[in-house]
């Protein structure tokens, strides 16, 4: 499709050892930050492997900037930066040497190299650590270095498969500031994440479940589409609530959210009624108010609904 940075149509892949995709279609607009969320084993990594030309899909079509992911893999590899879930850095090499190595593999202009590396070091704020061995970096610094390695060729498309797993909240914030800067420079990013606060920073979010897309939109659109009214219930202790307990009759979903409990109830139900229903399983619940819907609520509702249907 013209104009899309990434275009995927009816992508299907079902192979032992890979998580299956069953007819996935979507497109990513140039210069946008597109998030993929979903359960473990939903097929997100398989999608990344196809887009990065490491895997040939059994059927369907994937394009990056108009190039066919299957037939034009060489050209595609020149324009993408890919950070797999299990990236490899060389522990014995320093930060600087890792970048230099990554650059030599992709054969970038030797003259520009020092400048490019300095740029990336400044951008990632890894400058003070440039002579430290990669093995001696903290978890968050390793993720930043891996991102820099993926960016060494100044790709116009970044494919990031769960780049912030195991990273603390402060470093995650830094990392997403880096992604925002890249977006400002016009870079298109497809990123998967298990952190729902990160999904909210994306322009578009797609929900993947068992190899299929079960929702897509801006975070605001997805939140607005939640089927019902969301209530926040306090005064109970989240230590005593089990997610797989069946919600009381009349309540659509009930789950712990941080220190509170969230209840999704049909539109129009009064707060007093919601509270009394919730009290049948959580007697200590005392305080109720309408809650702001967030992407975490959207995904939980979608996953619980999908589980109930299967």
């Amino acid at each position: 499709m013209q104009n899309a940075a990434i275009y995927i149509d009816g992508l299907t892949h079902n192979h032992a050892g890979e998580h299956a995709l069953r007819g996935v279609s979507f497109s990513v607009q140039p210069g946008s930050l597109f998030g993929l969320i979903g359960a473990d084993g939903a097929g997100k990594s398989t999608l990344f492997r196809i887009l990065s030309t490491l895997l040939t899909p059994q059927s369907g079509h994937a394009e990056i900037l108009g190039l066919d992911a299957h037939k034009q893999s060489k050209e595609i590899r020149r324009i993408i930066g890919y950070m797999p879930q299990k990236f490899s850095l060389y522990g014995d090499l320093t930060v600087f040497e890792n970048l230099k190595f990554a650059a030599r593999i992709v054969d970038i202009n030797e003259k520009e190299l020092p400048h490019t590396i300095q740029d990336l070091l400044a951008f990632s704020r890894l400058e003070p650590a440039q002579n430290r061995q990669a093995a001696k970096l903290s978890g968050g610094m390793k993720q930043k270095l891996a991102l820099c390695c993926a960016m060494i060729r100044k790709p116009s498309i970044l494919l990031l498969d769960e780049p912030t797993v195991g990273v603390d909240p402060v470093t995650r914030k830094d990392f997403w500031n880096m992604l925002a800067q890249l977006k400002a420079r016009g870079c298109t990013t497809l990123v998967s994440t298990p952190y729902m606060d990160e999904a909210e920073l994306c322009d578009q979010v797609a929900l993947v479940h068992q190899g299929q897309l079960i929702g897509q939109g801006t975070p605001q659109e997805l939140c607005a589409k939640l089927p019902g009214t969301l209530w926040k219930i306090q005064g109970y202790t989240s230590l005593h609530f089990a997610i797989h307990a069946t919600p009381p009759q009349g309540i659509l979903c009930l789950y712990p959210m941080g220190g509170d409990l969230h209840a999704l109830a049909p539109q129009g139900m009064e707060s007093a009624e919601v509270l009394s229903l919730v009290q049948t399983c959580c007697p200590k619940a005392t305080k109720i108010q309408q809650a702001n819907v967030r992407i975490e609520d959207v995904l939980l509702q979608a996953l619980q609904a999908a589980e109930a249907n299967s």
Partner: protein
Amino acid sequence: MNTVFSIQTQGLTKKFGAFVAVDHIDVEVKRGEIYGFLGANGAGKTTAIRMLCGLLQPSSGAGTVAGFDILRETAKIRTRIGYMSQKFSLYPDLDVRENLALYMELYGIPKHSIEDQFTSAVERTGITEILDRRTGELPWGWQQKLSLACATAHIPEILFLDEPTGSVDPLSRRAFWDLIRAEAARGTTIFVTTHYMDEAEYCHRACFLVDGKVADLGTPPELKERHNVASLQEVFLAVAKQARRS
């Protein structure tokens, strides 16, 4: 033996050369408590856990775990604790039954109670239906449950969980926490590190480590009130501002 505290340390310190990874921490974890141990990457959490588990000799300070001295009685400590991390070590070519049996043997569970404890671990973690599956081919969520079964089959007094929910979706993380709560309800003390601050809210008390020192400690409501914020995520960001080292 101390009947109130499962873990107690005084001035626990670990230095690597001039670098002080863990700096005089005093920790008291009550029996049956879910204790969150939080901090940035590199704050010293894993080093502290390794000392508590008897895998690393402290540079100075003292402590007891399950009533045993962490300097001199590490062998006794190891039989009374369970440990599980995100990078759990299961044998991918063994089936689920074999993995669990292997762990039980390693923990030295007496022969006469092996069968009962095996059944109990399988039921508690809900892995009956996958017992004959090859471990390597299982989805991550199942491996995580098996891992928990392996870490708890010997009925440890204290369960150490070092980032147990790495890359897991919100629904599966909540399901995993149901299992953790059930363990705690049986009287097991839970010492857990996580980067998901919503999970920290499920702890009875949370301890924030900054640059190897205890920077704050309290119940989730206390912590939020003290920092005048609505979530532990914001507490984390506030506390982490004190950090000097990277």
